[in-house]
């Protein structure tokens, strides 16, 4: 039973993610974790101000159920299947400690320096989290999908638009980590 508590290696996780995509395809849907944000906007009445949210969101309620499941899955995994620590490349961990005073690699699942309860009293951290989320939500809809919708579903279907989007994801991510992190943190 030890394998349940160990981190799952990539060659277990990757195929299981492919399985999730195929299950959704077989029931006539598609794998994508960001369209639910549009459904959520529509469900709370955003259709009144933009045609983008005027659609039959009730037909898309299924993706809110996937979201609910993901929340429950996160609860189960963190409470019953994990010691909630993540070991990363020691060089990266050391660099995080030296450059950004983030010393929690190997001791926590998320850095408490950013996600801990104490950090929540820091307006700067709240701005980082809010703007990060804002860019993710805006970018995902602009690009028509996120990591799951483009990098897994779209590329599996050999879609050129998804390849362009995934290249964009990495340009954005690399620019943020290599050029903007030193300015922000």
């Amino acid at each position: 039973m030890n394998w349940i508590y160990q981190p799952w290696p990539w060659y277990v996780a990757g195929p299981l993610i492919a399985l999730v995509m195929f299950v959704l395809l077989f029931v006539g849907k598609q794998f994508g974790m960001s369209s639910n944000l549009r459904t959520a906007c529509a469900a709370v009445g955003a259709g009144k101000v933009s045609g983008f949210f005027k659609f039959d969101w009730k037909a898309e309620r299924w993706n809110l159920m996937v979201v609910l499941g993901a929340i429950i899955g996160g609860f189960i995994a963190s409470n019953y299947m994990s010691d909630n620590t993540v070991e990363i490349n020691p060089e990266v961990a050391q660099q995080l400690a030296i450059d950004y005073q983030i010393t929690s690699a190997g001791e926590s699942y998320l850095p408490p320096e950013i996600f801990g309860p104490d950090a929540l009293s820091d307006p700067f951290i709240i701005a980082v989290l809010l703007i990060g989320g804002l860019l993710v939500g805006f970018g995902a809809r602009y690009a028509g999908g996120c990591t799951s919708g483009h990098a897994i579903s779209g590329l599996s279907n050999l879609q050129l638009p998804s390849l362009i989007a995934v290249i964009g994801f990495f340009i954005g991510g690399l620019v943020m980590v290599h050029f903007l992190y030193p300015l922000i943190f």
Partner: protein
Amino acid sequence: MKYIIYLVTGIFFGIVMFKSEAASWFRIYEMFLFGSFHMYGIIGSALVLGIIGVQIIKRKNIKSVGGGEMSLKPKNKSVARYLIGGIIFGLGWALAGACPGPMYVLAGAGYASILIVIFGAVLGTFLYGLLKHKLPH
């Protein structure tokens, strides 16, 4: 009752995301520093199996449950929206250290701060809806 399959699929997905550490800020940061093969292995192996499976579905013309076509429609051709949208998404992915799937998983894991990220993502989606017709697509 018909929603059970989506709920169960979501739970399974959530456990895989958490246990593979794809929902960890550290793993995303490490990925963008090319510090480990882990994240590339997850995406790459899902992709290889995905490509093979989708090819089988297309060649054998396999239908979904109920006999409908599978959702494998080609996406609209464009460069601007995918590239600009993708870059904006990537900036946020690296800044928050989470993409949409893991956000929900982390909420379930009890990280209250992630609710700010999710609120931001809903707000970002709403802003896109307001500005859509002014953006190059």
